């Protein structure tokens, strides 16, 4: 039983860490495109880890299916919204961040 609890804690903590990393990426990355990259990837994996971590607690088939459905829908929504933001940014010709050492004043949010 304790091994399961340890495994669950590991999954939950690493899931939460994924969210933290994604948020840091959102704040620190220089332009719209890289921010989308940080946010969508970290969120999908982070939520997945948390959901896998939650499944063994009071296991029931119905709750498991519901949790997996939530994960699926969130992945769909985050992929779609990430794509739409990038699409719109490209249509509006939001510039890529300049590489090292240049000023990046023209960042948009």
């Amino acid at each position, binding site marked *: 039983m304790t091994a399961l609890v340890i495994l669950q804690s590991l999954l939950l903590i690493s899931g939460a860490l994924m969210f933290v990393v994604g948020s840091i990426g959102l704040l620190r990355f220089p332009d719209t495109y890289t921010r989308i990259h940080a946010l969508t990837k970290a969120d999908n994996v982070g939520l997945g880890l948390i959901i896998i971590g939650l499944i063994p607690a009071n296991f029931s088939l119905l709750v498991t299916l519901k949790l997996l459905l939530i994960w699926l829908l969130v992945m*769909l929504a985050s992929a*779609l919204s990430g794509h*739409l933001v990038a*699409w719109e940014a490209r249509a509006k010709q939001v510039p890529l961040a300049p590489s090292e050492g240049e000023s990046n004043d023209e960042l948009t949010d």
Partner: protein
Amino acid sequence: MNLLIDLTLLTGILAIAATSLLSRSLFQSVIFFILLGLTLALGWIRLGAPDIALAEAAIGAGITGVLLLDTLGHLKKTGKLDKDEHRPSYPRLLLAILSSVTLVVLLLWAVFHQPTPAIQLHLLVEEALPDSGVSHQITAVLLNFRSYDTLLEVGVLVLAVLVGLALQTDQHQQDSLPGLPNPLLHACLTLLVPAMLITSMYLLWAGSDRPGGAFQAGAMLAAAFILLHLSGIKLSAQLSHRMMQFGLLLGFTVFLVVATSSVIGGRPLLAYPDGGAGLLILLIELALTLSIGLILLSLFTIANSPPLSSRSGGSNGH
């Protein structure tokens, strides 16, 4: 541990509310307002009120957020919003701070000096629940014991949308928003819209014995309509104007007919016949869901109608 979660949530709510109020950019304020709605929903769940949490998430955060963003986009497009930053004038700020502090003090006073209620309302509700036709207390209160309030609430919603429609002078140009011709969006819609419709009907059906109900289901329906509208499939273009009006008024009409028909039968206003309460409540909620969905969609499309000045340009090009 639970205390820690509650304290974090409380600090988060206050911090987000403060950011939303103090932010210089209107866009940022709106985003933080939506965030506030979501955290408030979590707060309601922690307080054991899933009904209010659902309503807050669906209407407070979802629909209100969309309406606010929509209005902001409209203001930017028409140039009414000359610059994004704004600074409220000093006396107005002082007045706002003073009145909100007074309100908070009054609320705190009311919370700490609660008189012990003479009637144990929740016990009364519990006692009358078997006769109400549903097995969830909130739905029983909303659509049976205090259905008068709900009827008037729906009346207010209908009135709001009627005023909005009256202000919109030209019906043919109500959609200035071009649809998004994005293939991935359209592919995802075929998955998302059926899921949203099922969820909406589930919320409606669940309302009889657990959290849910017409308002939440209507908000979900409206979200599906708005998503379709944004991607270029416009319901208002598919339906005739008369059909739309019929849909807007359907919920209120059904409610009113059920309410007054009991007077004809010799019972007081809004008293359901014995045994038929459950069916009538379901009927009312079904009509209400459709109407609330259409009302919220109409409020959204009204905000998108072109400004009066640009109408003479004859830009009816779709």
